[in-house]
Structure formats: structure tokens, C-alpha cells
């Protein structure tokens, strides 16, 4: 059977204390090859959804399929191996601060492509750094010695190192200035377009960016998906909250 959804969440609920549900029945389909933005107010469960997709949290109930695999049914070892299909760019870039830029990008390759010679690993890492537009003079610097924008580029190069099938961006532009924000948005779009078959999922507060670069958008509210569809679906929606979001997004755009 052909799997058309890269990620599929069906009736997913999550509670941490058996009292209050953070997710109250999430239904979400992320089509293969799409660039989906997950938007919503703070505290609506966007990052929790991401952590479920990555298998960092187990759902209290419901089904989560990633590339046709029920992620909750995997053993810890299987899950560890399965995660090689993901690349993640964290809000803080989460670079290893005791490694240089180049070592950061080499790390996943040394971990999971043990058949490669060190020279091959270096070649792949340098190729990824070139793809994200990082100048060679920064390769031997520590993360603390480069700017926030360069850290994001390095984080993206590291996320791309293993040729992931799904690339996840967790609030990639939060806290950045408008110029850096635009640079990161363009980088996400270019990366997505340049890699055939890549599915990208971006959690963002940046509505303008979501409407500009995403081809699918899901809006979360109070632990549920309020609306999921193309940007046009959002523009044509009659839901009051969606209308407010769209107008806000357009204003920034």
C-alpha cells in the first residue's frame, strides 16, 4: 500500500498528570513532500505534538504513524534507529558547545554511517555546510564564536547530514531579528525545494512566514486541530479565530 502521509495523528490525546489533557484528540495528516506549518497560540500544544511525532513523548491514547510506522509500538532501540529518518532544527540550534561547527555536522555521520571513511564524512559535512551557505572560514570555530544566524545554519546542516526523510523545525525564528528571520525562512524554503521528497514540519509563531513558505498549515487551539489545509483554505475559512489569525498574518506580511 502506498503511504501518502508522512505523518498521521489520529485522535491523539496526552495528559501528564491524569488531570488536565494537553492534547484533546488531535487529528492531523502531513502529506509526503509537503512543507507544513503548525501554528497557534502559546500553550496550545504545538511543541507537544512535535515531541509525539519524534517519539519523545508517548500518547496517552490515539495513533501516531510516521512513514507508515506506528511510532508508539516501537521498542526503545527500534525508536532510536527510527529517529535517523528525522532531522531537527531546534529553536536554540542545540549545537554541541564543545565541538566545532564542522565536528557538529560530522557527529551524526560518525554515529550512524560507520562504514564511511573519515575523509568521506568530512566531504559530506562540508557539502551540507555549503548547502546552507556557511563560509568555510567558520568551520573550525566553536558555536559560541559564531552569530545566531550562523548557529541556525550549522544546526540545519547537522539536521540534513543523514539525508532525513522528515525535517522538523521547532520555532526556528523565535527571538531572531527581522533580517535573520527572513534569512532562516528563505533557508527553510530553499532546503525544502532543493530536496525532492523531503517532508518539512515547522512549528512557528511567525504567521507571516507560515503563510509565505508553507504549502499546508494546521492551526491548533486548546489541544485540538482547529483547521488544517492549504493557505487558501485559511483565507476562505469562516472560523472566527482563524480569520483573526489570518488578518494578523497578512498584516505582518
Amino acid at each position, binding site marked *: 500500500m502506498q503511504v501518502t502521509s508522512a505523518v498521521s495523528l489520529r485522535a491523539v490525546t496526552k495528559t501528564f498528570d491524569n488531570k488536565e489533557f494537553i492534547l484533546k484528540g488531535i487529528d492531523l495528516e502531513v502529506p509526503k513532500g509537503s512543507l507544513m506549518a503548525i501554528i497557534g497560540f502559546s500553550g496550545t500544544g504545538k511543541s507537544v505534538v512535535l515531541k509525539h511525532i*519524534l517519539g*519523545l513523548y508517548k500518547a496517552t491514547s490515539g495513533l501516531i504513524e510516521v512513514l507508515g510506522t506506528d511510532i508508539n509500538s516501537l521498542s526503545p532501540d527500534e525508536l*532510536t*534507529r*527510527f*529517529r*535517523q529518518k*528525522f532531522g*531537527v532544527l*531546534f*529553536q*536554540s540550534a*542545540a*549545537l*554541541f*558547545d564543545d565541538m566545532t561547527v564542522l565536528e557538529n555536522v560530522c*557527529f*551524526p555521520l560518525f*554515529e*550512524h554511517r*560507520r562504514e564511511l571513511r573519515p575523509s568521506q564524512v568530512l566531504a559530506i559535512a562540508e557539502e551540507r555546510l555549503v548547502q546552507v551557505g556557511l563560509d568555510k572560514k567558520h568551520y573550525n570555530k566553536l558555536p559560541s564564536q559564531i552569530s545566531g544566524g550562523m548557529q541556525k545554519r550549522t544546526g540545519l546542516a547537522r539536521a540534513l547530514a*543523514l539525508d532525513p526523510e522528515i525535517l*522538523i523545525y521547532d520555532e526556528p525564528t523565535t527571538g531572531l531579528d527581522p533580517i535573520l528571520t527572513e534569512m532562516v525562512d528563505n533557508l527553510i524554503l530553499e532546503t525544502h525545494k532543493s530536496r525532492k521528497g523531503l517532508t518539512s514540519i515547522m512549528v512557528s509563531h511567525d504567521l507571516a512566514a507560515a503563510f509565505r513558505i508553507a504549502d499546508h498549515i494546521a492551526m491548533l487551539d486548546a489541544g485540538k486541530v482547529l483547521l488544517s489545509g492549504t493557505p487558501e483554505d485559511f483565507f476562505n475559512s469562516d472560523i472566527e479565530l482563524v480569520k483573526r489569525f489570518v488578518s494578523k498574518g497578512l498584516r505582518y506580511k
Partner: protein
Amino acid sequence: MIQTIARYLDLALAYLRDQIEKLIREVGATFLFMTSSVRLLFSKPSRYNEMIRHMEFVGNQSIGIISLTGLFTGLALSLQIYLGFKMFNAVNMVGPVVALGITRELGPVLTGLIVAARAGGAMAARLGTMRVNEQIDALDVMGVNTRQYLIAPRIAATVLCMPLLTAVFDFVSMLGSYVLCVKLVQIDEAVFWQKIRETVEVRHINEGLLKAAVFGLVFSVICTYRGFNTTGGAKGVGEATNEGVVRSMVMIIILDYFIGNLIRLFYLVTGMG
């Protein structure tokens, strides 16, 4: 009046019960953390390079401070015992008493306390920082087993280094004792060494080294556990480091007494003592 006392008593008991429950849960979680991490030492991919890197930090970088502390412990202990034994005309026994005290008790305990403060604190702080900066999450989603990569090599390195550092402490302490006894207060050199040879056996030294390995296991598990489970940003890192070091030190002192007794019991049962 009686009702008020009963109510306060109830509250106190409830508080005590909560604290005991919390303690049991914490001890259980730490124990599970230790067993699952140690088990991963022998799984693939091997982390020997990481282990050697941590051995350099825990062991090699601690030699200076261990030597300095050991030297002055030997000097101070010898001086006090000399002053006491002089009153009983037993200054020839200063060497053996210092040697037994150092090899069986002070060597492993002081080494444990110093290395727990230096390396254990650094482990908790490093792992805590990695947690709050999402570096551990990054490793997780990269498909790296974080306990195998971050925890197991640190524990193994500490367990291996602690007996070696204790041996260094013992040696330098005895050097300090020799300087004080033989060079400063003029105890006969031949008598000093002869009495030590007659009194101190290899098993006494082994007892100290065994204790050191256990202390290393305990403080590395406590500190890595606290660091690995840090929450709450920079404040959380500070708390994790503080709790990790304090708990480690208290556990070393408590365990020293119980391990010492267990070893005595072992000697008694096997007739070796």
C-alpha cells in the same frame, strides 16, 4: 488543645510520609538509572574513546589537587598522632597508625569527597546545561542513545579512576607522614618503615581501594542522574549541581561506615581477620 496537637501531629506525620515516599522513589529511580546505564557499557557502538576522555578529566586532572591534599593530610595527621603518642612514649607507632588510617579510611573518603566536588559537580553541571540547552534532546532525535553516550562512559571512567587516585593519595600522604616523622621530629627511619611493614597488610590497602571504587560509582551515578534530569533553566542547573555534590558527599560519609563494617564482617566470617 488536644485536638490542635493531634492536628499538628497528623500534619507532621503526613509530611514525614511524603518525604519518605519521595526519598524511596528517588532512590529507586537513581538505582534504575544506574543499572540501565551500566548495562549499556557493553552494548554497541563502543564508547571507549568517550570513556578515556572522561578518565583524563576525572583522573589525570585530579592528580594535582589529590596530591596536595594528600601531602598535607599526611603531615597534619602525623603531627597530631605524634603529639598524642609522645605522652605515652609510643612515637614509634605513629607511622603504622597513620598508614592504617590513611589506607583504610581517610584515603578513599577524602579522595571521594574531593573528586565528587570537582568532577561530580562538573558532570552534573555539564549534563544539566546540555539538558536545558536542548543538546540532549538533539542527541535523542539524532538516534543516539543518550545514556550510552553520556552516562555510561562517565560512570565507568569514575569507577576506574577512583582507586588509582586513592592510591596516589595514600602514597603522597605517607610521604608527608615520612617527612614529618623522620625528617622533622626525628623518629628513626628504619623503625618508621619496619613498624609500617609489620602492621599494614595488602588487604588494608585493598579495602581502601574497594571503598574508593564504590564511592566513585555512587557519586558518579548521583551527579549524572541529577544533571541528566535537570529542569528549569540556569536555576535548575545550579540546583542540580548543588544537590548532586551534597548528596554525593553525604552518601560517601554514610557508606564509608557501612562498607567498613561489611568488610569486618566478611573477615570475621571467612576467618581472615
